[in-house]
């Protein structure tokens, strides 16, 4: 599992793999757009018709929603509720937790169906879990060598001051 107290680093290689999985899911599920978000509300990747939605807001609200739902689950003695579905008049949102660590959001309309989305999400989740296992393994391998994964190791006070000038 990703350590919640370290920096989460996503390299190009894994970013491409993740993008490929959600691109395929988009086609297979006939969805409008797909977002992959970490549990802290950071957007990891997205695909499809994403221009019409404020992705940053979507990410933080989804993470808040998952956090609140997770709290509810614990209250009644469940580990988590892995899937949520919100039905709208035109568009629907399918939210699922992948490998206990990231959140997969699929937005779809009448051109798809809940059954199809659920089916395709299940398959994509397995692939994504493998990719995030690899990311975790990479992170663990770099423990003790923080500078290697950290582009900020070399920043100076001046660099930081310049941000505020």
């Amino acid at each position, binding site marked *: 599992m990703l350590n919640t*107290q370290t920096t*989460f*680093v*996503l390299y190009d290689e894994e970013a491409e793999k993740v993008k490929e999985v959600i691109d395929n899911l988009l086609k297979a599920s006939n969805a409008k757009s797909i977002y992959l978000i970490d549990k802290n509300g950071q957007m990891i990747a997205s695909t499809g018709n994403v221009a019409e939605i404020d992705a940053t807001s979507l990410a933080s609200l989804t993470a808040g929603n998952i956090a609140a739902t997770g709290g509810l689950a614990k209250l009644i003695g469940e580990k988590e509720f892995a899937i949520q579905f919100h039905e709208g008049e035109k568009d629907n949102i399918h939210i699922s937790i992948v490998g206990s660590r990231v959140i997969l959001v699929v937005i779809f309309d009448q051109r798809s169906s809940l059954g199809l989305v659920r089916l395709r999400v299940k398959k994509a989740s397995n692939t994504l879990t493998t990719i995030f296992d690899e990311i975790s393994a990479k992170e663990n391998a770099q423990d003790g060598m923080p500078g290697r994964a950290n*582009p*900020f190791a070399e*920043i100076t006070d001046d660099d930081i001051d310049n941000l505020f000038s």
Partner: protein
Amino acid sequence: MSFINYASREINCKIVYYGPGLCGKTTNLQYIYQKTANESKGKMISLATESERTLFFDFLPLALGEVRGFKTRFHLYTVPGQVFYDASRKLILKGVDGIVFVADSQEERMDANIESLENLKENLEEQGYDLYKLPFVIQYNKQDLPNISPIEELRRFLNPTKVPEFKACAMSGVGVFETLKAIAKLVLMDLKKGTR
């Protein structure tokens, strides 16, 4: 937990504004939102009750500029201050990179400040964090009001370890950006060290 994305050359950090009910956490974010250029800010989200008390959180994404080719983005969150929303506060602290404690400087709110600070420490400890090892600054808000505690007293009860502290009046904006800059700097310095 900060998030470094090599694909989009971005770094994202999470800053949480904590403090007792009605101390001015949301007002801090609203002032930052009002005074930030459109290209540097995203939409501000407030999950609040009808009487504008924060129910779950406020959220404001800010882009500060580039450091070493990486866009720095700060996600500012507030917690609901009222005591009975503790379950929600715990959720918002998950993955935090830096904390701003907003104190209400009025004499009659000293107890509420102390209680909220203790609550912050406890909630962080539950998640394995030590407040004094995190990037942490304190803001003494509402300095424009007549019935405020002397700064020495605020300091004695709320800032024993002498973290950076700022006097503020969030309504008029005094001290708001100074506080934000201080916490952003500490978070970036922390990233530089790579200790977490």
